[in-house]
């Protein structure tokens, strides 16, 4: 059944103040499809006489114009009623989510809490499955592990992550909080012997996990290849896995004693690209624990290309160049790049491509004038900058770019873009980012030498927007906020890190105001460290690069980022 039709049916029921169409038509939910449809037809005929009646006009016109859609929905009454229930459920879901978050704030989750939450869900009319999904999702987001009943006590004692009840990917501050919590719990335990064991276990866990180096070594020794930083990942992990124990499966292959084979991938494991008429470039940066060779393959080589097809055996760090071509059939396509090292470590990066909606005819007057500007600028502004680092061209962008073009070809986005085999000689570099002035200059790329080009973008206008009283705050879906904040959060933490003192935690809130157009247009900050003008500027610039989809007319929205930085 089409989603759009269900949406219309739901909207109509809301409009007439009925729970569902059956109720509107005065029928029992057990009525057959034929019965409801006949009744709907009758109602429509009746409403024809009411369409100019100011009291019933809206209802009548809606029914007349969407009769086809509503009728289709009622051909499958069971599916429709099911959808109604699901919608009611999802209306209450935010309440449940808030409760779950409140519990998860503690950094841990035990069986007792789970059953409390489950009870809450039942009260709100939310099914067990939906509840489980919400719990899984939120605990993944917050880096809190669900209770691990499947671990034996012995196992539990031996696993530092399990002792603290955190996920293996959890950032350090979460681990710290969990450690404090565990310590307090231990103290509160009436049995002194048990208390001591618990305290020791927690201490031991913190000693290992609190220091990035020992944590790394520990991860390696347990065979878990997932590294501590959130930016890294290992290959195919089950989708909803918060209840599973931290990844501990060993990768096959010969091993040097004490050092597990490992493969780290930087960047997102799932990458989403809009592909228009031309190719889109991306890159995969990876590091192997020791130099080793391996194979790189694409599951859809006709549109997802990767180069080189093998790992360079002498390098520990390397970059794979990925190109997405508009050669996929449907509007969307998904494929993956698999990396397998000689030791059997595996990783996969999933590429989701969607066709960018565009008319091939394009770039209006705006771009033509820009070309003129670019030509004018090119005179005497050749740049060659800092060398060093890996061979190839690295473009460092402060704060970040929506699109980096080299001679008109997209090379990627983000705050650093690496081009492995750039054309040597003079090239046109163009970096664009919403809210910032487009940066254009000619660069001279030396053959076979690394080149790093720093680009500092300039804000087009000051970020001084504040919503006024008569503006309506629109809502942003949580996943949208996450998607836009994820690439920003590390840089924002870095901004504050500039004034952090070792051992002290700085925390606060950055509130970004989004205009109707979807662009960030104002920032408000509150918290530690922001009295420093450098931090303020840095945060403002980061905030300025935030962009969500356009909002409803007259709306604005705010995105809140809570920082917590410890050096």
């Amino acid at each position, binding site marked *: 059944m089409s989603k759009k039709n269900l949406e219309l049916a739901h909207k109509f029921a809301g409009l007439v103040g009925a729970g569902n169409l059956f109720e509107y038509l005065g029928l029992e939910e057990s009525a057959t499809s034929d019965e409801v449809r006949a009744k709907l*037809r009758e109602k*429509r*005929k*009746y409403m*024809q*006489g*009411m369409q*100019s*009646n*100011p*009291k*019933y006009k809206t209802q009548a*016109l809606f029914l*007349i*114009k*969407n009769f*086809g859609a509503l009728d289709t929905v009622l051909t499958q009454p069971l599916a429709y009623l099911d959808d109604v229930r699901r919608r009611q459920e999802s209306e209450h879901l935010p309440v449940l989510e808030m409760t779950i978050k409140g519990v998860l704030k503690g950094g841990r989750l035990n069986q007792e809490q789970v059953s409390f939450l489950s009870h809450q869900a039942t009260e709100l009319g939310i099914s067990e499955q939906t509840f489980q999904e919400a719990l899984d999702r939120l605990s993944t987001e917050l880096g809190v592990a669900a209770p691990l009943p499947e671990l034996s006590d012995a196992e539990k004692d031996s696993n530092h992550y399990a002792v603290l009840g955190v996920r293996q990917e959890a950032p350090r501050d979460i681990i710290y909080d969990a450690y404090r919590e565990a310590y307090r719990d231990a103290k509160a335990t009436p049995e002194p012997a048990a208390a001591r064991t618990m305290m020791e276990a927690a201490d031991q866990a913190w000693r290992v996990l609190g220091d990035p180096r020992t944590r790394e070594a520990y991860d390696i020794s347990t065979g878990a290849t997932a590294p501590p930083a959130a930016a890294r990942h290992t290959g195919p992990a089950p989708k909803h896995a918060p209840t599973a124990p931290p990844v501990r499966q060993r990768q096959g292959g010969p091993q040097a004693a004490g050092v597990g084979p490992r493969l780290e991938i930087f960047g997102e494991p799932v990458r989403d690209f809009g592909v*228009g*008429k*031309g190719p889109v470039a991306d890159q995969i940066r990876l590091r192997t624990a020791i130099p080793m060779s391996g194979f790189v393959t694409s599951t859809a080589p006709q549109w997802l290309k990767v180069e080189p097809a093998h790992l360079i055996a002498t390098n520990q760090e390397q970059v794979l160049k990925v190109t997405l071509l508009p050669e996929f059939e449907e509007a969307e396509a998904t494929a993956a790049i698999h990396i397998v090292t000689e030791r059997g470590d595996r990783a996969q990066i999933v590429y989701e491509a969607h066709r*960018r*909606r*565009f*008319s*091939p*005819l*394009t*770039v*209006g*007057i*705006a*771009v*033509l004038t*820009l*070309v003129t500007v670019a030509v004018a600028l090119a005179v005497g502004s050749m740049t060659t900058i800092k060398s060093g680092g890996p061979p190839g061209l690295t473009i460092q962008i402060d704060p970040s770019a*929506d*699109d980096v073009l080299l001679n*008109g*070809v997209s090379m990627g986005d983000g705050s650093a873009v690496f081009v492995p085999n750039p054309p040597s000689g003079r090239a046109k570099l163009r970096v*664009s980012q*919403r809210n910032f002035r*487009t940066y254009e200059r000619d660069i001279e790329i030396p053959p076979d030498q690394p080149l790093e080009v720093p680009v500092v973008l300039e804000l087009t206008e000051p970020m001084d927007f504040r919503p006024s009283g008569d503006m309506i705050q629109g809502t942003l879906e949580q996943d949208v906020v996450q998607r836009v904040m994820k690439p920003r959060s590390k840089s924002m933490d870095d901004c504050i890190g500039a004034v952090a003192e070792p051992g002290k935690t700085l925390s606060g809130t950055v509130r970004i105001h989004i205009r109707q157009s979807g662009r960030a247009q104002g920032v408000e900050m509150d918290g530690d460290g922001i009295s420093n003008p450098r931090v303020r500027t840095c945060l403002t610039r980061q905030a300025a690069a935030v962009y969500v989809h*356009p909002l409803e007319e007259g709306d604005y929205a705010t995105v809140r980022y809570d920082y917590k930085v410890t050096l």
Partner: protein
Amino acid sequence: MAQDDEIVLGIDLGTTFSAMAHVNRYGKPEIVTNAEGYQTTPSVVHFYDEDACIVGEEAVKMVVIDPHNVVRFIKRHMGEEHFTLDFFGRDYTPQEISALILRKLKEDAEELLGFEVKDAVVTVPAYFNSAQRGATAEAGQIAGLNVLSIINEPTAAAIAYGLDRIGGKRKLLVFDLGGGTFDVTVMEIRGTRLTTISSDGNAELGGKDWDDRLLNHVAEQFYEKFQLDPRDDAAPYQELYERCLNAKISLSSKERAVIPVNYRGQRMVVPVTRDQFVELTQDLVDQCEDTANIVLEKARLRWEDLDDVLLVGGSTRMPMIRDLLEGLAGKPAAEGVNPDECVSLGAALAGVFRHRPNHPALLAQRQQMVSRAKEVKRAERKAPAPVKAPEPVADSGRPKAAAIGLAYGGSRVAGGGAAAPEPEQYGLPGVTIEDATTHPLGIVVLDRNREERVVELIPAGTRVPHRYKGRFAYAYENMTAVRVEVTEGVGSRRDEVTVIGKVELTGLPPRPRGTPIEVIYSYGVDQILQVRVIDVETGKEKEAQIQFQGGMTSDQVSSARDHNRRMAVD
């Protein structure tokens, strides 16, 4: 080819009333009365069988008896997607319902005039968009009419009004508040040229809204007393609506009206004073005022710059509207125009000016002008002025405006001391009509971030005919085709506007980003947009006509036409 004096029926297809007119062979525009003998026909259709309906006054009477089979105000739904009404198991589009009204008009006209009517000019509110215009044209086709052009109602009104005022230079504001739509247009008459300067309006504001205010007021009073709402049932609602409508009309001439309500055995009489009515509808009047001010501002004029204010549409009979305009303009509205008739009269005239260039009355007028010019010349030669004439060149072929001696239907003569022509003397001066667009036309492009954006090419208020030529460029390397998507409406995002047509130029050689492409939009007087896309480097091009679409395919129109033919219309 149509005969030069073959009739062009001017049709004012209104929300509540429709009217028709033609220009007789002497050049005089005349209202064509319907079979019942009235100047206007209610735009109401009653379906009483699978293939039979009644249009007009009789249909209005059925509204209380058979409310679910009567259609009113269908014009408000013209061009609306998915809007169909079901009568006796068949779904009718707004086009088809309007076509039934048009057919009644056509047949009544044929009966009165005694010959077949093929061609028509149909009017629409200036603020109608392309889908609404397209739907109106489709309604004409279904009714078996050859719609020569669709023209704007205020323009038509101005033609009818301006015909005996041409020759000078005047600025006029046409304020058209009908049964369902509202339009304000500033026009200029200069010589024989009639130009639209600016226009704005609301396709959903009209007398019906005033009726509804009264109705809601009365229904609320009734509810307060009996906890019963007469709007809840179709027939009592319709009955009450009729009473409110009548009360509204009497409030135009009287200070007080009473509205009797009778519902579920309870009765009540609600008195309404004119002041109360004004209070109930104040915001509607304010809307009218705002629109009028905006239109003047767009024309860069002040109220005192206007020579005339022309009131069109039945709802301008309401004293609150007359007072509003008199207050704004500082003088009473123009006299001598019938607000119900001038639109159809103007449409008939426009039909002659545009589509019958050799109408006998036009030829006769030209003939007269030539001979009068000769006379003037001869007279001047006989008695040369002692002082040098200020405009000696005017004699050479092009007569001075004042000397034209404009006449139509023999009823009026302008200027120049020429003798009054005999009644029924031939003569109709040719008038050139320059309309303006009311909705911007644009194109979908990719901007510098390769995001879709709509760029306006022909802004609203552009005088037609108009040609826009612009350069665009490849957004990506190695493109082999370009697509021009023509948009209508205000906004820079695709979902804010409507795409009304597409033209694709394919088979291009792949070239770098920035390769220039030229796009030409030509908008003609007949409201047809011609789009040309040219690849500058190879000279390859594609041209296409963007027809205004009302939402029905040509197959649907022709099958609707068949059904319409089978249908009995009384």
